[in-house]
C-alpha cells in the first residue's frame, strides 16, 4: 500500500493493474460490492473506477482533485453514495459532506449510508434550484458535481458562485451523451470548457475512457 500525491488516497498494484484505495472510515463495513484490504491495523476499501468518475480521473493522472482530509464538500448528484462514500473516507471524521440528490429513491440509500457515516448529510433537493437548499448548507471548500443534466454546466456555475469559498476547488464530471446525443463529444467538451473559463480558473481536465465513455472531468478553481 503506497500513498499517492493526494492525501487520503492510496494505491496498490494487483498484477499489472493499478488500483486506488481509501481508508475505511467505518471498519468492516462495505458500501457496495467493493473489496476490503487490510494492512496492519488499517482497513482499506478498493475504489472501483468503472463505478466512480473521480477514481477514473485520478487513474488518468489528473493533476489536482482539491479534496483533502478535513474538507467540507458539497456533492451534487450523490445518488446512492458510491463515490460519496470514498470522498467521506478521504475527508475523514474531521471533514464533512453535503450529499445532494433529487430522486427520493436513491436518497433513501444515501440516508442509510449516512447512518453509518456521520460525516455525510443527505439532502433531498434539486441542484438546479440552489435557493431551495441554501438554508440547509453552508459555504464549502470543494464542490463536486456529477449529474447527468442537459444544463449541467449552468447548474455547476450557479452552485459554485453561491456556495464555493474563494480559491476553492470545484470538480465537474460531464457526460457528453446527456448534453446532446448527436453531437461529437469533443465539441461538447470544448463548449463546456469555454463556459467554465468565463467564470472559473480551469486547472485540468481529463477524458475518462476506458473507464467511462464520453465523459470528461474538469477541475477548476474559483477566481
Amino acid at each position: 500500500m503506497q500513498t499517492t500525491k493526494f492525501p487520503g488516497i492510496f494505491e496498490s498494484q494487483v498484477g499489472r493493474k493499478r488500483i486506488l484505495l481509501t481508508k475505511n472510515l467505518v471498519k468492516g463495513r462495505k458500501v457496495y460490492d467493493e473489496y476490503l484490504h487490510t494492512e496492519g491495523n488499517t482497513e482499506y476499501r478498493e475504489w472501483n473506477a468503472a463505478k466512480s468518475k473521480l477514481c477514473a480521473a485520478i487513474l488518468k493522472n489528473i493533476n489536482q482533485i482539491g479534496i483533502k482530509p478535513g474538507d467540507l464538500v458539497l456533492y451534487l448528484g450523490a445518488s446512492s453514495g458510491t463515490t460519496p462514500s470514498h470522498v467521506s473516507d478521504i475527508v475523514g471524521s474531521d471533514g464533512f459532506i453535503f450529499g445532494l440528490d433529487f430522486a427520493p429513491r436513491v436518497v433513501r440509500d444515501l440516508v442509510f449510508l449516512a447512518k453509518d457515516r456521520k460525516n455525510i448529510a443527505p439532502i433531498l433537493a434539486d441542484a438546479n434550484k440552489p435557493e431551495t437548499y441554501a438554508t440547509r448548507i453552508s459555504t464549502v471548500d470543494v464542490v463536486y458535481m456529477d449529474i447527468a443534466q442537459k444544463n449541467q454546466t449552468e447548474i455547476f456555475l450557479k452552485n459554485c458562485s453561491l456556495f464555493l469559498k474563494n480559491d476553492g476547488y470545484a470538480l465537474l464530471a460531464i457526460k457528453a451523451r446527456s448534453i446532446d446525443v448527436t453531437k461529437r463529444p469533443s465539441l461538447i467538451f470544448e463548449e463546456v470548457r469555454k463556459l467554465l473559463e468565463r467564470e472559473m480558473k480551469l486547472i485540468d481536465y481529463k477524458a475518462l475512457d476506458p473507464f467511462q465513455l464520453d465523459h470528461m472531468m474538469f477541475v477548476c478553481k474559483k477566481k
Partner: protein
Amino acid sequence: MAQNYLFTNLLGSFVFDGQFNLIDSINFNTLDDYSNSAKHEQKLAATHKPKLTTQQLLEKPNSKILQQILPYFKDKTNFSHFYSQNMAMTAYLIKQAVNEDDFIIQAINNVEEIDKVANTLAKRLREWYELYNPEFSRSIESHEMFVELILSKTKQELLKEIKHDENLLGADLKKQDIEPMLNLARSIRELYSLKQKHTDYLENLMDTYCKNIKEIAGALIGAKLLEHAKSLRHLAVLPASTIQILGAEKALFRHIKTNSRPPKYGVLISHPFISRAKQKDRGKIARALANKLALAAKVDYYKGEFIGDKLRAEIEKKFS
C-alpha cells in the same frame, strides 16, 4: 439606520449587521424549531428591524449578500448540527415524496413480473406434464386454462374431453411422481390469482388517480406510460410526440444517431386501437392516441373533470 440582515436556516435564526458580523441569534435544536421559524424570525425582526429577511435573500441567490452570510456557518462545530437537522429533514421529505405514482409504478412492474414468472413456470410444467399426458397439453393453448384443468380433472376425464380415447404417448406414472407436478400447478394457479388481484388494485388506483388516461389507454397501458414518464406530473408536461414513443427509446436514439426509420409507437403498441389496425394506419392512430393522452394527462394532473369518454369517442369516430 437598519442595515441588518435576517437569515434563518436549519441551524437557527441569525441577524447580521452591514459588515456581516453576527449580532443576534436564536438556535434551533430540532426540526420542529425550523418548521416554526416564522415565530422566531418575527421576534428577531421586531428588535432589529432587518433590511432584508430570509425570504428576500433567497429570492436573489446571486446577490452578493447571501454569499457573505453563508461562510459564517462553515465551521467544524456546526457539522454535527447540520448532520442531525438534515437527516431529520431529508427523512421527512422522503416520507412526503411517496404518492400514487409510486404505487402505480410498483404495481404495474409487479404485474409484468408475475406474468413473466408464471409463463416460465407454466412452460416448465407443460414440459413435465407431457411425459404423462402430452395429447392434452398440446390441445390447449392458454396456460391459465391448462393449469386450471389439470388440477380439477383426472387424466381419463381430460382425454375424454378432447375426444382422444386412447392414450398414445403418455407414460403411466405413479401417484408419487404425479403429485410434484400438481404441486407446481397449484403454485402457478396462485400466481395467476395474485396477478388478478394486483391488476384489480391497479385499476382502482388508476380510477381515482388518472381516470382520463385509464379511459383512453386502459389501466395497464396507462400505468406503463406513467412508469416511463416516472410521474403523472411529468407525463402532463410531456408533448404528445414524446408520449407516442414512450417505451421505444432505443429505436428513437438509434434514429437520432444513425438516421434509421423513427419508431411510430412505444408502449402504445399493445393498445387495441393500434393492434387491431392495418399496418399502414398504425402510425396515424398512434399519433392521434398520443394527442388525446397528452390532453388526458393534463386534465388528470390538474384534477379536471372527466372527458376521457369524449376523447376516446373522437378517436373511434376518426378511424372507424
